[in-house]
């Protein structure tokens, strides 16, 4: 089975993140950039399927030149190669445009299975798997906490608010994963060295046959009018417990009408 794993480079969610004042896009220059955390679980899942059933694992990233670092990091976990869609014109792409570009790249790669994270930590839009499935005429099985492959049948177990559900589809399909699905491996020294030699194909919009003015900021289907920082929450009252902490807590809750 040939698998493509979608990997997005995002600003580290453990640090301050901001939008730029000039064009309202994520300030990726200021941020520490990392692989979107959930995508590491998608890579791990792909590698486990490859270990069990063979086939190739290819990373697909759409992002600026700098995203190449994340691609190498992803490859050091074990995948065979990568495709990096990069083009100046892609900056500021909305989700709709992103899905159009990724779908075009996926059509060429023609995988049996597309694995991706359930959501990115920056946009958190949580729409990419379904957008891609819609464009490619495939099934989307989203939010997997467990994936089993039996021939060309995929079975996914996914959490719901009420419990969980089991969903099945035939390949080709898009499957998005939560961080409950596995424990991603750390790249070994050998893996890091090997990653340097793995093929990474750089693809432009022209290569995909997509007009530049239909994506990026120019072709965006939504626009940010303005943005501002939420005023920082100011710390309130903190008391040290000297035997009556619980009572004082309830007194506070009572003044706020919670009890």
């Amino acid at each position, binding site marked *: 089975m040939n698998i493509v794993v979608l990997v997005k480079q995002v600003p580290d969610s453990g640090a301050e993140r901001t*939008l730029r004042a000039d064009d309202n896009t994520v300030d990726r220059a200021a941020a520490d950039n990392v692989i979107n*955390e959930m995508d590491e679980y998608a890579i791990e899942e792909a590698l486990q399927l490859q270990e069990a059933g063979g086939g190739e694992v290819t990373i697909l990233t759409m992002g600026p030149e700098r995203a190449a670092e994340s691609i190498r990091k992803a490859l050091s976990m074990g995948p065979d190669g990568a495709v990096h869609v990069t083009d100046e014109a892609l900056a500021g792409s909305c989700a709709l445009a992103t899905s159009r570009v990724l779908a075009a790249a996926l059509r060429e790669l023609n995988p049996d299975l597309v694995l991706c994270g359930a959501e990115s930590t920056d946009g958190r839009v949580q729409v990419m798997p379904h957008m891609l499935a819609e464009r490619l005429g495939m099934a989307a099985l989203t939010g997997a906490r467990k994936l089993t492959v039996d021939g060309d049948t995929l079975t996914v177990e996914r959490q719901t608010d*009420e419990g969980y559900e089991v969903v099945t589809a035939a390949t080709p399909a898009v499957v998005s994963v939560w961080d409950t699905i596995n424990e991603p491996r750390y790249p070994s020294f050998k893996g890091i060295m090997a990653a340097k030699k793995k093929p990474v194909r750089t693809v432009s919009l022209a290569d995909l046959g997509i007009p530049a003015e239909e994506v990026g900021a120019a072709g965006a*289907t939504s626009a940010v009018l303005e943005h501002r920082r939420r005023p920082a929450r100011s710390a309130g009252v903190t*008391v040290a417990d000297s035997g009556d*902490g619980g009572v004082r*807590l309830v007194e506070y*809750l009572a003044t706020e009408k919670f009890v």
Partner: protein
Amino acid sequence: MAEVLVVVEANAAGVKKVTLELLTHARELGTPAAVVMGAPGAAAALTDKLAEYGAAKIYAAEHEDIDNHLVAPKVSVLAHLVARVQPAAVLVGATQEGKEIAGRLAVRLDNGLLTDAVAVAADGAATQVAFAGATIVTARVTRGLPLVALRPNSISPTPAPADAEVTPVAVELTDADRLARVSERVVEQKGSRPELTEASVVVSGGRGVGNAENFTMVEELADLLGGAVGASRAAVDSGFYPHQFQVGQTGKTVSPQLYVALGISGAIQHRAGMQTSKTIVAVNKDGEAPIFELADFGVVGDIFKVVPQAAEEIRKRK
């Protein structure tokens, strides 16, 4: 006034609170029209509640295959409705299903979408929160109609009784709508507590709770306050509490009136899921814990002393 399509979410207990919020928002934009999509009979059970909250119309799309498959059939129904009704806007909840419907519908209609909005103005401009609630964005769909996913708990739903004329909608599905089949749905016991993302009070426990048994202390306080129970990732990863109750970056985003953090340090990824809560209260034995930076009221102390005492005090006052 043009109709505003509201995608209804419901479970065994009836219409979900997020849908009532959407109806409340929708009134500002036009005439609320609720769209119920489910198995035969789905709409009848929900009509009264939807009417109470202002649905002037209810579109009832009922078909076995809607319930048995992931969102694609619902998207087909909505795409037809949008073409027929030419609504002023389409509103969904910023829930997993709501976002997935919006994503597919956006592709189907070649229409922009906005997610994680907390408000929509009469002209369709939406207020979104980004980066763990630290940044507030005003945005607008520039291609097509406003297709907006609104966060649960972004408004208090208010009743505004309306006629709720029920209009059946023919459901025409294609093979492509039936690719992802739900073969089993398992409801796990969760008792009478409110839904985490909808609760007006959330009491969460962290690594400081120590083990799974001790979580009964967190549950007890939640029950006394009529709230839901949440957990930090460290508590979930340690097996103290199930994953569906995780609050934060990779868990649920909650925005209750009151958030109580017990034995939680307040890491940035945890704050991502709760810092837009109206009032935040924390108990932690470490006075330097970052959670106190955002707490309206904090107690530096041992949760095993403070929480049982607080529970006792609430019982006394009842």
